[in-house]
């Protein structure tokens, strides 16, 4: 599977996650988000960038509880709850935010 971007074929897995995190680009994120029926607002970007930075630092995508805890330290209480995150990413922040951030598909059992 692949996404067409800047006249290039960007490889993805069968569910649309990028195979190489270095292929990621902000404009590519918008294309992936569109496929997910998400219009990226600044609130989305906060989470997407955060998840991507988290992965690059810790080599793992944060589970929701770790994500809310880490977000709390950065952005405060009101943005650090799963209700807020699910409003932004209805199919689950772990699934959708990581996909838009160009990260690998999280392990199925997580």
């Amino acid at each position, binding site marked *: 599977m692949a996404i067409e971007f800047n006249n290039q074929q960007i490889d993805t897995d*069968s569910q649309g996650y990028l195979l190489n995190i270095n292929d990621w680009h902000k404009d590519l994120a918008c294309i992936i988000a569109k496929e997910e029926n998400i219009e990226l607002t600044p609130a989305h970007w906060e989470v997407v960038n955060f998840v991507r930075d988290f992965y690059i630092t810790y080599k793992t995508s944060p589970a929701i509880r770790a994500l809310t805890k880490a977000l709390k330290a950065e952005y405060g209480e009101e943005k650090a709850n799963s209700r807020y995150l699910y409003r932004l990413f209805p199919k689950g922040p772990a699934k959708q935010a990581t996909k838009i951030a160009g990260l690998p598909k999280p*392990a*199925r*059992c*997580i």
Partner: protein
Amino acid sequence: MSRYALIVSTPPFDNKTQTALDFAKQLLQSGHQLLGVFFYQDGVTNANAFVQTPSDETNLLHAWQSFQQQSDTPLHLCISAAERRGLTDSNEAPLVHNISEGFTISGLGELVVLTSKADKTVQL
């Protein structure tokens, strides 16, 4: 009577797995409750339907399956550990569903549930 959780981490071609099965059977014979067996690490390969055992050797897959049928004990499989070892519940080419009947596709969350509910957790 105690409630047990059993974690199996060894493959079907390791005799240690027979020990785990013997222990599971004895638990029930001794009147204990086995909440479930959780297959993790190399233990997930016990569910591989494509494993072929010579007919004059113990077939642990069949042994687990008949244990499951007779006792109704859930046999949970950590799907993430399973997928990386060639097991799949997908039929999307080139994959072929090869997780045997009798095993339940689960995640590590099930390990949490089993071990926190059990009075005793045994890793074999």
